């Protein structure tokens, strides 16, 4: 009922930034944009090393045997679980960490040598290295009006 007392007018810079982000997430089809919580748990970064793609995920407190990486055609799915610690009869005074099951899934725009995928989980960071085959999938070209 009440009108907002501010309106959001994106500046040209913000529009350009949004467009860039969308291009990247479209290339990695299905990768959810996130600024903090919501779609982006656990947080991940993607790096292009030329010969290989690296994906790093922040997974503190996640047991290695709960992590599962699945590659189906060009779709990569990462699942896992962070168990909440059990201290018996404890009062929780503050809780900032997220617990429970997580699942992140996206399509890679490059062809990957599936047999050469390596993953290492160290100090709460999962690093996935995926060597490219060199053939690239057809690029999705965004049409700018």
């Amino acid at each position, binding site marked *: 009922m009440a009108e907002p007392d501010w309106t959001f007018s994106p500046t040209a810079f913000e529009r350009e930034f949004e467009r860039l982000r969308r291009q990247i997430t479209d290339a990695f089809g299905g990768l959810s944009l996130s600024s903090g919580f919501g779609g*982006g748990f656990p947080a991940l970064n993607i790096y292009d090393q030329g010969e290989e793609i690296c994906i790093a995920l922040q997974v503190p407190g*996640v047991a290695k045997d709960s992590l599962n990486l699945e590659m189906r055609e060009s779709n990569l799915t990462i699942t896992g679980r962070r168990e909440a*610690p059990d201290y018996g009869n*404890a009062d*929780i*005074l503050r809780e900032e960490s997220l617990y429970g099951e997580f699942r992140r899934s996206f399509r890679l725009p490059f062809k990957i040598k599936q047999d050469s995928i390596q993953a290492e989980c160290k*100090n709460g960071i999962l690093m996935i290295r995926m060597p490219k085959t060199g053939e690239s999938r057809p690029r999705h070209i965004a049409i700018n009006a």
Partner: protein
Amino acid sequence: MATEVEKQKRREPSKKQEAAGNAENLSEIGRSFLPDTGIRETEEALILQLDLPGVDKGGVSIEVDETNTLRIKAKNSFQEPENNLFREFEIGNYFRSFRLGEEFDKDNMIAKLELGVLEITLPKKEEVKPRRIAIQA
């Protein structure tokens, strides 16, 4: 309430440092992040859990000073590859401090780092633990 949680803003450490001229070298940590923290209390102890992804055992410093301030500093040793395409997290060091109540036995503090999570247990002093009173028949 067992503790007051004091969020240390990035600028505060350097102001305090200048004012007090103390030797505490917070500048070696530089720009730092607040790690996600969980605080739990049992009858026996206070347990803190800090998420420190990218930190290995040698990179953590835990101190309690005479004002009962617990300071945790951690250096991130994660080597980030170049050419970032998409980013949801930043790489950096961690710092957080907490004010502790008098009821904790600081000398018997235990810390362990597993899977990138630092767990600190502060046992309560004996006299503070709840005593069970037997009812005479």
